[in-house]
C-alpha cells in the first residue's frame, strides 16, 4: 500500500534552532569571530578554499564557523555560494616563477639557487602537544634576515637545460572547465589537474600513497616545493590590456620521476605537477604524484591496473561534495523504496518450504 505523507516542518525548524545553539556552545566561552578563524585556523581556511574552488579567505572562514568546523560541510557551503556568482572571465595563467616564496625546498638539489628556505613549516617539530598554547601569551615574533629580492628560479629549469627532463608543451589554449561542462572521459591533463586540485585531500593523499606503495610504481622525487604569493592578472576588455586584480597564496610541487625511455624518446626524467590554493603542501605533493600516475598513457607506459592509473576511478571519486551528497542522501527518508523491498522479501520467503525457512532461522 502506498501512503504519501508530509510533515516535519516544526521538527526541522526546531532542529535548526538546536543546531544554532549547539554551534555556539557554552555561552560562558567567548564567541569565535570569523577574523579569528581566518587568522588562526589558516590551514583549514586554505583547505576550504582549495576544495571549495573559490579563493576568498573571509568566506572560507565564515563557512568553517557555520559548519562548526566540519570542513566538508564548509566546502559544500562555498561550492553552493560560488554558483551564485557571475563569471567575469578568466585570468592570465599564473607565473609561479615570479612567486614571492616564503617556503621553498628541494629534495633533489642541496645547493639550489635561491636556497632551501624552510618557512613556517611543521617539519622538524617534535609533534609533542604544546601546553603553552593553552595559556594566552604574548604574540610570538619570528627572527629576520637579509631578504631575497629577486624571484626564485624553478629547479626543473636547470634539468631542462641539459634535456634531462621532458619539456612541457607550450600552449595558450583555453583549457576545458569542469564547472561549465560535465566531466567526460577520456579527460585531458588540464581537466585532470582541475579535478585533482579541487579534489578531496584525503582521497588524493590515499591515491598518491598507493603509488608509493607499489600500485602504479613511480618513484617520485620532490624536485621543488614552493609556497608563496602570486599576482593574478586579467585582461580588462574596456582597457585593452591586462591588470592585476589580486593576489593569491599558492603551493606548487614539481616532482621528477625516472623514465627509461621508449622507442621514440631517450631516457629522461618525467614530471608530475601539483598546484593548489593556499598553504596546502600535503595536497600539492599528493596531486603531483597522482598527476604523474594518470599520465601513463601519454608516456607510453604499461597500465598495471592500479587504481591511481584509472582516471575514471580517480576523477569520479575525488570530489568530496559529489561523494558526500550521494553518501548522505541514503539517510533521508526512503520509506517507499524500503516498503517495496520489504514486500519482495516477504514474497520470496512465502514461496520457500517451511523446513528450509526454519533451517535458515
Amino acid at each position, binding site marked *: 500500500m502506498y501512503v504519501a505523507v508530509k510533515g516535519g516542518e516544526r521538527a526541522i525548524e526546531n532542529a535548526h534552532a538546536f543546531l544554532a545553539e549547539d554551534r555556539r556552545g557554552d555561552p560562558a566561552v567567548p564567541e569565535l569571530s570569523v577574523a579569528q578563524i581566518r587568522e588562526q585556523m589558516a590551514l583549514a581556511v586554505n583547505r576550504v578554499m582549495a576544495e571549495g574552488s573559490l*579563493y576568498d579567505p573571509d568566506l572560507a572562514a565564515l563557512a568553517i564557523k557555520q559548519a562548526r568546523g566540519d570542513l566538508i560541510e564548509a566546502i559544500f557551503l562555498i561550492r553552493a555560494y560560488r554558483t551564485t556568482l557571475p563569471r567575469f572571465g578568466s585570468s592570465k595563467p599564473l607565473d609561479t616563477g615570479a612567486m614571492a616564496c616564503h617556503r621553498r625546498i628541494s629534495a633533489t638539489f642541496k645547493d639550489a639557487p635561491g636556497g632551501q628556505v624552510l618557512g613556517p613549516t611543521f617539519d622538524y617539530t617534535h609533534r609533542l602537544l604544546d601546553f603553552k598554547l593553552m595559556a594566552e601569551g604574548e604574540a610570538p615574533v619570528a627572527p629576520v634576515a637579509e631578504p631575497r629580492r629577486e624571484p626564485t628560479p624553478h629547479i626543473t629549469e636547470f634539468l631542462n637545460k641539459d634535456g634531462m627532463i621532458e619539456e612541457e608543451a607550450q600552449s595558450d589554449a583555453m583549457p576545458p572547465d569542469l564547472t561549465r561542462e560535465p566531466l567526460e572521459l577520456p579527460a585531458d591533463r588540464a581537466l585532470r589537474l582541475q579535478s585533482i586540485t579541487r579534489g578531496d585531500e584525503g582521497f588524493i593523499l590515499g591515491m598518491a600513497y598507493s603509488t608509493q606503495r607499489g600500485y602504479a610504481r613511480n618513484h617520485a622525487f620532490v624536485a621543488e616545493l614552493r609556497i608563496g604569493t602570486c599576482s593574478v592578472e586579467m585582461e580588462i576588455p574596456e582597457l585593452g590590456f591586462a591588470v592585476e586584480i589580486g593576489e593569491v597564496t599558492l603551493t606548487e610541487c614539481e616532482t621528477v620521476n625516472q623514465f627509461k625511455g621508449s622507442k621514440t624518446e631517450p631516457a629522461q626524467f618525467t614530471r608530475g605537477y601539483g598546484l593548489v590554493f593556499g598553504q596546502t603542501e600535503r595536497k600539492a605533493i599528493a596531486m603531483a604524484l597522482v598527476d604523474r600516475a594518470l599520465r601513463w598513457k601519454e608516456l607510453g607506459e604499461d597500465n598495471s591496473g592500479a587504481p591511481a592509473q584509472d582516471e575514471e576511478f580517480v576523477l569520479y571519486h575525488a570530489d568530496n561534495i559529489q561523494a558526500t551528497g550521494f553518501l548522505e542522501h541514503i539517510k533521508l527518508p526512503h520509506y517507499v523504496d524500503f516498503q517495496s523491498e520489504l514486500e519482495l522479501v516477504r514474497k520470496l520467503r512465502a514461496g520457500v518450504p517451511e523446513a528450509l525457512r526454519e533451517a535458515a532461522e
Partner: protein
Amino acid sequence: MIAAEDRKSWMGLLAKARPAALAALWDEAVPHEVLRAPEVGAVMVQGRMGGTGAPFNLGEMTVTRCSLRLATGEVGHATVQGRDKDHARRAAMLDALLQGPRRAEVRARVLAPLGAQRAREAEHRAAKAAATRVDFFTLVRGED
C-alpha cells in the same frame, strides 16, 4: 597621455589594497556618474602545467568591479579582489582621478603610502623567510 604601464601599475596596487587601508587614505567623494554599479563576481584563475606549460583551471577567486565617470569627464574602471563594493567604487574613482588634473595629489596621498606599505609588508615576510634559509656545512668528506 597616460602610459598603459603606469595605469596598469596603479590599478594593480588599488586592486590588491586592503579595503580599510585604502579607505583610510582616501574618503573624499568626488562628483561622478556610475557607469557600472559595483558588482561581485568570480574570475577563473589559471595555472600552467609544470609551471610553464599549457594552462589549466585552478579555481575561482572573488572580485568586485565598478566603472564610473567623473563630472570632469574621466572614466575610471576597477576590478578589485574580494567582495567589498566600497573598495571597487573607491578604486574606480581613484583610477579616474589619476587620469585628470589631480593626479599628482592622488599619487602622493594614496599611491605612495599604499606602495610603501605593500613593499614593507612583502619585505618583512621575505626577511622572515630568509631567516629560515638552511646553511649546510660539511661534517666529513668521503674521500681521503
